[in-house]
């Protein structure tokens, strides 16, 4: 009996990932960028390895004891290993709920010196919006954090808010998204526009982000999709076409 249950679960999972591959299409315009990732390119070409630090808050993980293993940082690692076979991929995750961007900026130096990453993926904005931090203040903190990362010689990929239609009447994230776009442009760094991408998925019917559910399956599929879109953005931007 146990065997059959496991078997059914494996089939369901495989089926799920097959569906995910189809439902995750992202139009190239949302991923393409003129911005390169020189440090990432160098590491891969010269050392055949890639060290990434993911810094973020609650929306970089999923609830539950095994949530992190289904969240986008884990899915990104997996996707990068598939896209760059033969290279060593190491992703260190620094995700902690209820942190403002100012908190993360304060802790950035420690992360940089411990991980010595070639790329920092920095998810920010949501908790600042939730806790009513002014967009101006958010901008200053984000700017200072990006400065620190750039000074440490790492590339940056800023990852913005999730598209969340049901909480939108209560939580307006557009001002924070504007700040992130502007900071990325000012520093010539990469931006992963999670907000626009998730909105695209919702509008195209790939996911029903309005749906209320207590189950984690859709959340996991969304994170899987984000992980893979992020991997393809990195590979493209670093000109590492497999």
């Amino acid at each position, binding site marked *: 009996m146990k065997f059959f249950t496991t078997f059914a679960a494996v089939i369901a999972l495989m089926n799920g990932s097959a569906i995910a591959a189809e439902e995750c299409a992202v139009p190239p315009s949302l991923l393409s960028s*003129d911005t390169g990732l020189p440090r990432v390119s160098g590491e891969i070409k010269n050392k055949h390895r890639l060290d990434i630090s993911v810094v973020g*808050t*609650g*929306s970089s993980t*999923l*609830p*539950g004891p095994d*949530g992190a293993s289904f969240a986008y940082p884990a899915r990104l690692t997996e996707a990068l290993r598939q896209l760059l076979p033969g290279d060593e991929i190491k992703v260190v995750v620094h995700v902690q*709920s*209820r942190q403002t961007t100012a908190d993360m900026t304060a802790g950035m130096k420690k992360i940089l010196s411990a991980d010595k990453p070639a790329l920092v993926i920095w998810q920010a904005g*949501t*908790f600042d919006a*939730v*806790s*009513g*931090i*002014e*967009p*101006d203040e958010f*901008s200053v903190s984000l700017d200072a954090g990006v400065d620190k990362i750039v000074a440490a010689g790492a590339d940056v990929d800023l990852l913005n808010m*999730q598209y*969340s*239609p*049901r*909480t*939108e*009447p*209560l*939580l*307006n994230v*557009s001002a924070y998204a*504007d*700040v992130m776009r*502007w900071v990325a*442009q*000012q520093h010539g760094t990469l931006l992963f526009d999670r907000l626009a991408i998730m*909105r695209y998925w919702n509008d195209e019917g790939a996911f*029903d*982000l*309005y*749906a*209320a*559910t*207590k*189950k*984690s399956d*859709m*959340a996991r599929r*969304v*994170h899987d999709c984000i992980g893979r879109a992020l991997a393809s953005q990195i590979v493209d931007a670093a000109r590492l076409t497999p």
Partner: protein
Amino acid sequence: MFRGLNFASLQRWLAIAANPQGYATLLRWLPRAANAEAAPLAPATSAGASPSTTASPPQALAPGRDLRLDLFRGIALWLIFLDHIPHNIVNYFTLRNYGFSDATEIFIFISGYTAAFVYGRAMHDRGFIVSSARILRRAWQIYVAHIFLFTIFMAEIAYVAATFSNPLYAEEMNILGFLKQPDVTIFQALLLKFKPVNMDVLPLYIVLLLLFPPVLRVLLWQPAYALVGAAIVYVLALHFDINLPAYPNGVWVFNPFAWQLLFVFGAWCAVGGAQRLSGLLRSRVVFAIAVAYLLFAFAITLTWRFESLQYFVPNWLGDLIYPIDKTNLDVLRFAHFLALAAVTVKFVSRDWPGLKWPILQPAIRCGQHSLEIFCLGVFLAFAGQFIISEWSGGPLVQTAISLLGILIMIATASLTSWYRSMEGRSHQQCTKASPGNLAGGGA
């Protein structure tokens, strides 16, 4: 109640006694203040307006209604409603996509203009205390309206909290945290410190009106002092980062110390400033600068829509203009509004025949009942957004909701006019002396 005591004449006597020179200046100044025919933006009165009977109205302020103000305020109210529904395809047609300023500037400017016109006249006719009392009563009405909207907002939030959950949005759902402390939240809302999305304009308006009596007094005495004072407050607020605190943290979305500049500027225009500017507004150079600036602003907004165009904005220019701060009424926004107004008055004169076109009457009607229609608009935006998110509305649903919302606004404005006219009639039967209910709809 003041009328019965003949308070106005007492007031005037007190005012003359207290400051004979100032009052004499006021009386001398008023007639030349607003030759409305020449004024680019001339005074409006509100629906149901009745001429004051205690003193003959100052000729300069009373050439009748300037329908342009009603028209543009009505349109601004529609645009505010549309802008408050996110992901609405109709939003692509609202003002904010074509320049730096948006409908909020129009609304606050015209509110300042009408407030000065209506209460300036009251202050002239009936004195400082009576007019101040009416301004404060108006502020109280707006406060009550704000709390009413807050109640609806809380109901919506409570509904989302009760019905929506999704592990994907665990972090976003923290926004509902304040529901755990409804006592604190409600108390903070009563203090105007709690700032739900889209409910920021009324608190601003309340504060502007609370501070308006002394400002109006100065405006009627020496208009330039009031304007310069407002500009100084604006500069100080920006320089020292002064704003009112909000709950749970942060500051007001519309900084009253910054936005007062636009309100006072509107008021200044109403008491003769517009006339002073008329020469400037007729100048071709000014017109050319205004058009050039509008085109520049339009080009910049295009780069927000189309990311590939962003690279045409050189970094030095970006450094210079960004961020274009709405909270503190960025100078670029203010300038954009001025340019827009300058171009508008060039094409839409006070006696523009279009103001009589039936197709524009609905907007004019809405502009005449601004408080009611503004509140209704906020409520309809909540409701519209709710419907779109409940049924995942596509472009067709969004368009239908937008149009339906505007139709409801028009119908309500017409109904309000009807009520006012009925009340006006019965009121006239009771007493010949009018309390000058014009504060209600106009300011």
